């Protein structure tokens, strides 16, 4: 069966290789110092979508991302790897959103897209690590959710079969479409960018980007409609401003503390049960664990 898949993706600061200036003095992330990347688990999600597209001809993969104008790069990255189209949700009113306001905005955009069978996203983003947005989107749309997916094995007769990676093993579940799947980092890596797609889509731009673009290529956007990336604001998705961005976010950060890990002492452990036992007791006693 062919599927209409929406992949939710987020542009995040690359927190995997942080340097000294990764944090600002006020304790917030210094986004300027960190390269903006495609959230790693969203890439795992995209790969699952692309595999479905390979397996079921006629399947379409649409990316949906929310962020500042430069997040259009995420859509292009998706197109380079085999996605068909994408939407950028961008508006000043979306800024400062917590997971509640984010999932609200995204769910409104999905309502606007309207036709879909499957929504796939990464389990969590490496900047916030909340793992809340996917489940909240499902809840707001009234959809079933399958979390921690490692492999979407098949899609037949209106159902998908998914292998989930759990703490103590794997579980294979079936679910009726439409539904939301969140994908685990243990799923296969995303395929590389494709040389032909990169050349085809490298000029793809949002309306805002076109205004700043090289005038040489402007006539392209009429003759090649696929190069126009859709940009939506609050009004486009019929969202209520009060529920978006900072005003729609009940989460308030009270305090941020810098934690500096310092090994003050080290000890060498004999590889015996007694030595490990002694260590465990010590750790429980000084409340490091337990």
């Amino acid at each position: 069966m062919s599927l209409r898949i929406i992949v939710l993706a987020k542009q995040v600061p690359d927190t995997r290789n942080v340097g000294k200036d990764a944090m600002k003095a006020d304790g917030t992330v210094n986004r300027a110092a960190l390269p903006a990347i495609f959230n790693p688990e969203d890439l795992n999600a995209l790969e699952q979508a692309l595999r479905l597209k390979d397996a079921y001809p006629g399947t379409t993969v649409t990316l949906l991302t929310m962020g500042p104008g430069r997040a259009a790069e995420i859509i292009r990255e998706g197109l380079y790897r085999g996605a068909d189209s994408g939407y950028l949700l961008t508006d000043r009113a979306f800024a400062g959103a917590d997971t509640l306001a984010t999932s609200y905005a995204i769910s409104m955009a999905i309502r606007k897209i309207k036709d879909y069978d499957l929504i796939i996203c990464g389990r969590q983003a490496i900047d916030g690590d909340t793992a809340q947005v996917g489940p909240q989107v499902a809840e707001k749309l009234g959809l079933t959710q399958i979390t921690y997916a490692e492999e979407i094995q098949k899609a037949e007769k209106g159902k998908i079969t998914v292998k989930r990676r759990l703490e103590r093993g794997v579980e294979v579940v079936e679910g009726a479409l439409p539904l939301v799947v969140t994908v685990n980092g243990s799923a296969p890596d995303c395929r590389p960018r494709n040389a032909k797609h990169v050349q085809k889509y490298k000029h793809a731009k949002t309306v805002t980007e076109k205004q700043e673009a090289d005038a040489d290529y402007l006539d392209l956007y009429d003759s090649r409609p696929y190069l126009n990336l859709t940009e939506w604001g609050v009004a486009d998705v019929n969202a209520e401003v009060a529920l978006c961005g900072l005003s729609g976010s009940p989460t308030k950060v009270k305090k941020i503390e810098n934690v500096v890990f310092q090994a003050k002492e080290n000890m060498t452990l004999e590889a015996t049960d007694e030595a490990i036992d002694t260590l465990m007791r010590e750790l429980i006693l000084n409340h490091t664990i337990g």
Partner: protein
Amino acid sequence: MANYYLDTPGYKHHLHHPLMKRIVELKERNYTDKDKYDYAPFDFEDAMDSYEKVLEIVGEICGEIVAPNAESVDHEGPTLKDGRVTYAPGTQINLDAVRKASLMGITMPRRYDGLNFPIVPYIMIADMVSRADAGFENLWGLQDCAETLYEFGNEDQRRRFIPRVCAGETMSMDLTEPDAGSDLQSVMLKATFSEKDNCWYLNGVKRFITNGDADIHLVLARSEEGTRDGRGLSMFLYDKRDGGVNVRRIENKMGIKGSPTCELVYKNAKAELCGDRKLGLIKYVMALMNNARLGIMAQSVGLSEAAYREGYAYAIERKQFGKAIIEFPAVYEMVALMRAKTDASRAMLYETARFVDVYKALDDISKDRKLEPEERQELKKYGRLADAFTPIGKGMTSEYANQNAYDAIQIHGGSGFMKDYTCERLYRDARITNIYEGTTQLQVIAAIRHVTTGTYLAQIREYEGLEYKPELEVMRHKLIEMTAKYEEMVKIVTELKDQELLDFHARRLVESAGHCIMGYLLLQDTNKCDSFRHSAEVYITYSQSEVNKHYSYITDFDCGELGYFKPASL
């Protein structure tokens, strides 16, 4: 994220050579493909931007997939079962990535699903892939065969086979036999035409065939019964889907172990003629070998780069006598020379690739229309330069790859002799580069006529006449002195009109030409970009001493001494 393209600024430098404008213009033929293909460029800048973007993809695949797999591929290697080859798991992952990224059929025209890239960016990819895993470059680089198929096959064959290569099917070129290695005229694999079935059948054995279980094979076989020389050989296309060829064994090699080197048995294997009868060796294989030699040059450069990086990384990290070993002159000299040889090799590689590019693009245009007189001149000039630079470049760069791999181990000391360090694999992998696709000794034979006819000297003079910044004058002066000595050596040897003596000194003469050429190329690189300065200074100092050594050998040599070297006197 490791990215081999972005971590080596030299690539970008070589990609943006002024001659690229002409190359892209010829290759894209006024950018007419843009109306037919959504991935074709609009203009020169757009094309260059596309090359860079694709090179970035390759850089990432090399750094994140191919290089991390190299060790396991080296250990596991391919396996053979029931006449069929299975690649090492890492190799399969690499191939899968390359296919998904559409990196097969890179130079093929778009009408066969290729990317229509010039040779320069293609060779740059080969350079990076080799740095990541030289053995994998063998499999991936066999897409060169599609180039030969494109040049000499008929339109029907092009349409049937090239899109399959672009979609990721692999190729092989089946030339060598147990009794036909360097001497391919002795090929005996028999091709018989069946009137009844209206096709050819191949029977016999091939040996040392890289990727021998490929999907599509180009085969050199004897089509003319009763003949014994090269004129009785034709080129054939064998499709694995038709069956008839089995792999009898996979060689247990010293290096490039991920690449299966096979012995093949042909039993009534159905095949089709590619090109004209009797031109198999004298025309097609010669063209194929030239492409392949450029590929080995790229492999050598990639290996040189890898060896340099391993050597350097160890030299700054390893502490002895209270300091990093790179602080000792004996070590830093090695490291500097490795860097210089790598940069010189790379300069040579891309200069040669540009010559091949202009020549091939014009040759391709000449199939569709008559060339203008000035275009014919251009074709002739670059064809000659490509012909001259390919053997000398392959010879020099593959020897340097070996020297660099040797020095990388030397820097590691005892640790380098252990299997724990990458330099050990590089040493084994590099060893084949100056052997296959013609040993260095055979490259010298191909290059020597360009010494005697003056192709190299004329090109060196052209380099000499370019404008250089005043601060580079000392280096330029050294190169002028080297050139004078080279010229004198050539004169001394050729004036004696003794073919055997010329053959005896040939390598010294060819190497001296190589030193002058590579010195000038580095000088030009430095002229544009100061980051090459160190390499240029080091290389020119080193190569001047090499030229002086050859000079003294030749000028001090008494013709009578030759007798002492001959087999009878040993």
